[in-house]
């Protein structure tokens, strides 16, 4: 087992741990509860 593979395994374990902690505390940077409320006029944006 190469040194690099050991380091990568540790990195994977770190990410698993972070994932477990984030899920336990229900934390996500992709949540919508910090978005501003509706007030602006909307419409298509592709043109």
């Amino acid at each position, binding site marked *: 087992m190469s040194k690099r593979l050991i380091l990568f395994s540790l990195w994977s374990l770190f*990410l698993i741990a972070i994932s477990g902690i*984030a*899920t336990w505390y229900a934390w996500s940077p992709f949540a919508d509860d910090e978005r501003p409320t509706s007030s602006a006029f909307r419409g298509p944006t592709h043109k």
Partner: protein
Amino acid sequence: MTVARAVTCPSCGGSIEIRAAGYTVTLACRHCGSVLDVAHEDVRLITAYKRASANFAIELGSRGTLLDIEWEAIGALERRSPGAIWQEYLLFNPYAGYRWLVLADGEWQFGTLLLDRPEGSLSSVKWRGQTYTLDDSSEIETTIVLGEFYWRVARGDSVQCKTFARGSSYLSSEASGTEVTWTQLVPIDRRDVEGPFVVRQRYKPRPDLRAIREGYSTAPGMDENDLPMMFLVALGALFIIGILQNLLSGPSQCVSNRFDVVVGAADTTHKIGTIDVKRPWQFVTIKADTDKFDNRWVDLDYSLVDRRTQQSIDAYGIVEYYAGTDSDGPWTEGSHHGETLFARVPRGSYDVYVDAGSHGWPSDPRPDTLDPKNPWSAPSTVSVWLAACTGGYSWGMFWTFAVLLFGVPCLILWWRHQD
């Protein structure tokens, strides 16, 4: 009164008549289809040059040293015979004159125009004491012309060509009318051409599979053959992350409701139901679906109101869909589905409320506008189905972890083979 004038197409050399000289600005060549700017005295080629130059291996104007002389590629021809197609490049040096580079089947030849004509019969010729035997005789046609030449050349020109061979050297004669020209062609290593001249990648020979395998095994870092194992570890870790997210996010409970929203009217408040967050912290996901509509949006201001403290957690969702037609044709944007994720919702019992309002684009329908076919019709509405669930998880987090895991071995793979 308009005056007719004739110009020469810089792409194919064909003659074109401008019937409204002085008025016409652009003109398509009737021989090759190139678009010309005839407003300028020197008749500029607008569109054909780039298209035509992409067909050639060497970029015109590029310079390189061959046989100790620096040459500039000033002209290029694509020619074909009944059984072959090849490219010829006219090289120029102000002191040495003109030479040719010929590319056929990935092989390069260097051509020199002969000033002393070979002597001989139909089947062989003698030049400077050496005998060349007839190798091929055919009519060849010029199919693409690009750049500048010291004689008049045009697309579609045909000449009778005979090629005489002696080993890997050739003498080529081209007869057009009463004029016969002889050229000596000697092979030249492709590396001698690809080094000094800018040769387009697709004209370089592809490395064979053995070379690719050798390149792979000699790439940096290959003495540590751990890349397949790293991909496996990343896959395993992502699987564990998925299981963990599934286990730690539950239990799940859902409530749902359906209501209509009047387009252009004031926002209305609706209660979706009551949910219980049973873990210390949980995600709450609210999915919104609507019936089909065009050019409207539905604003959804959600509130999770804690029944014990009456404090609320707010989030904003939207469902929007637009459709229309413009110069590019029909287009659509948005969807009839929306999803809103609440993070870090603490344990408790929550009433889920939504303030819903719908509007039209580019403007709300006027309240007094009635359908002439049905004057008793109700105002325009959008039906909304909402489902609020605890126990969801963030797909954004999952894919972020996937990138962080697989990014490492992918980076190593790129680093090894970036050359």
